[in-house]
């Protein structure tokens, strides 16, 4: 009986998910597409929870749906509202459909076999076995910050690269939202709440769902909110501080890694007894960097005077190099 209920629940979740995905991809109205996309993100968060992945549920809600959604929403402001049908010829469209369908069938076939053949010997057992010496009890955090910390380091590099590109390309966008007293009032109590929440997520990540990325996203939300509520006050932070915050995450990560390298001849090899502390330090710094990065990404470009330093020492500017 319970089984049946679960199955019905699963089935409806899946169908709804596919419906939302299809809607996102096939509607001709940008606004609706984005809305559906955000809805899909929230549904995914539920599904992650259903599949016992609470960390992801959080991350999806805050980053997948939240930040991406916000990015899309701010992007479609200066964008044609209707999606023109692609110029692809009917023949090509047919080919694409056939190709995708074939691929889907092929993959389903493979997965069918895969689920049957899967010997169950996965890394999970090792993770559980090693978790005690990893310094954190939340296995996901253990994987992210210890077992596969190198991936996370490069991931931070990816975030940084993306943000650098954003800063390279445009000047920041000034919000079209007319800041209302209501918003400002709300901000006054919402921002501290967000900051506290992010601090909590960061701290709790060691043994329960949460961690640097979720916390960073929360913090970013706070910064963005401030920007939205008080657009007049341009420079909330000094730009040096911003630069510093942007790189501090990776920098700490690398420095700790090198320290361990010199100590134990292995990059990022934490001693079990300090591992917890080191991970917390790295995560804290990472949180700051991620928050700054996401906030800048949302602003969509350079704050005023971002490149002053370079401009000042560009005394001799001859012909432009790029091709």
């Amino acid at each position: 009986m319970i089984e049946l209920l679960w199955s019905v629940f699963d089935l409806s979740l899946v169908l709804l998910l596919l419906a939302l995905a299809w809607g996102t991809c096939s509607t001709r109205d940008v606004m609706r597409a984005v809305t559906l996309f955000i809805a899909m993100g929230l549904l995914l968060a539920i599904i992650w929870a259903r599949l016992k992945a609470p960390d992801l549920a959080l991350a999806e809600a805050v980053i997948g749906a939240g930040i991406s959604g916000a990015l899309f929403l701010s992007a479609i402001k200066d964008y044609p509202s209707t999606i023109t049908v692609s110029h692809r010829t009917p023949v090509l469209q047919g080919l694409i459909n056939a190709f995708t369908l074939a691929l889907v069938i092929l993959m389903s076939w493979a997965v069918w076999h895969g689920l049957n053949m899967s010997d169950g010997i996965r890394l999970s057992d090792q993770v559980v076995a090693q978790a005690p010496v990893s310094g954190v009890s939340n296995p996901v955090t253990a994987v992210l910050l210890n077992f596969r910390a190198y991936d996370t380091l490069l991931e931070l590099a990816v975030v940084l690269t993306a943000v650098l590109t954003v800063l390279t390309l445009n000047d920041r966008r000034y919000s079209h939202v007319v800041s209302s007293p209501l918003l400002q009032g709300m901000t006054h109590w919402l921002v501290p709440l967000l900051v506290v929440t992010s601090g909590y997520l960061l701290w709790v990540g060691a043994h329960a769902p949460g961690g640097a990325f979720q916390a960073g996203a929360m913090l970013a939300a706070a910064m963005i909110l401030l920007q939205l509520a008080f657009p007049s006050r341009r420079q909330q932070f000094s730009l040096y501080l911003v630069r510093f915050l942007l790189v501090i995450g990776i920098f700490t990560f690398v420095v700790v890694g090198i320290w361990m390298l010199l100590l134990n001849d292995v990059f990022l090899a934490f001693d079990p007894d300090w591992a917890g502390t080191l991970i917390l330090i790295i995560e804290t710094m990472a949180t700051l960097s991620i928050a700054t990065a996401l906030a800048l990404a949302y602003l969509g470009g350079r704050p005023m005077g971002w490149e002053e330093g370079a401009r000042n020492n560009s005394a001799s500017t001859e012909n432009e190099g790029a091709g």
Partner: protein
Amino acid sequence: MMNDAIIWVIIIPLLGSLISISWSRYASLTAIISNLLALAASIVIVNQVYQSGPFIHELGGWQAGLGISLRADALSSVLLLMSMLVVSAATFYASSYFTDAVKRARFWPLWLMLVVALNALLLSGDLFNLYVTLELLSLSAVALTALSDSRAALQAAIRYLSIGLLGSLVFLAGVALVYMGYGTLDLLALSNKIDASPLSQVAFGLLTAGLLIKSALFPLHFWLPSAHASAPAPVSAALSALVVKVAVYILLRLWMDVFDQVLTPLSAMLLGTLGAIAVIWGSWQALQAQRLKLMAAYSTVAQIGYLFIFLPLIVALPEGSLKDAAFTALLLMALTHGFAKSAFFLSAGVIQQYCGHDRIAELAGTARALPLTTFVIALSGVALIGLPPSGSFLGKWYLVSSSFQAGQWWWVVVIAVGSILATAYVFRILGYAFGPRESVGRVLNGGRKEIPALILALFATLILGFGSAGLWDFVSQHRYFPGS
């Protein structure tokens, strides 16, 4: 310290990037220093492999599987050295190419990130880590392409990014299936576990497809020419010489060392055929191209094709000296193209800055205005055609002989036609370059731009053409996955 070169070669550029973000005033200096240090590290790595065979660094001290491992063997270390040489030359070049300080400040951090991505990719021994590094590579490459800040460049960059993301996602889907079936991401463990099953075959197909997009094999090359042609010259050099090539490297890795149980001669033949078409099509387009850099970009499409023609031959040849020879020849082709194409793009940049354009038909008399640069173009052209003395001459020699030995003579026709087309497009440029012009330039103008290009061209021709004898033993002895 020395033993950790495999770490330093990744970490130093990363730190360099952070520093150049924080103090843009010292960015150029930082970039040059960190590149030279990384170059030194890569030399140390090659030496380590040469002295004591392939080796592994298990990050975090967790054995590969639970943790991520970095691995270096003959193939990866040699490619690493090549890419660091190219990158260092391009770095010197760039330090005088970008005359505008703001542009320079934007360039260095992203450039160093590209270096990080390249090195991390070449040394990675973990399937998912490959995905992350691939993303880092695409993003930094796209960002650098967009630095030109022209409409063409932006359009190219957007296309480049979306296609790159698609490739990564397809690759990631493959990774998911692999993990579903075999419960590990470590390449060595995988190579021991993998067996021919529907799952592994589909996974293999997805991984390959993702990498084919990134290595721009015909017909998935369409994004490449616009991107490589519109990026700033040093960036184009890195894109054509390295970024495309490391994707091919991963493909080879997976094909030769991990999925060797799964791959079928038929699939190899398919890729070989696509490679053959790429050779002809790319060369033909290069011959039609109106702009120097576009020509070079199409020539890259063709040169990548040659690498894929090796696949069916390597699969067909029996284990032993013949197979090894073919494989080394493939590597030699890749190295030569890396040096030659980067030298070509750097010189194209010099010409572009001198003439204010790079329209081939209006380059009359460049040979007189820029003798050295023209000479470099000619040298790298020789390597692109595959004339002696150059590494690609040897490469093609073995490509042809392998075709005869494997009884697949039809590739010979493709190679012949491709080489003749290459001759045509290279000497088309030189023909214009020898055209009349009044002003006779000095031999050297702008050493910081011309000397690096010259050095790269010499690597492609003389050094690889006459001095690559050691490579053959090195590769045949030290090409395998080191375990712990």
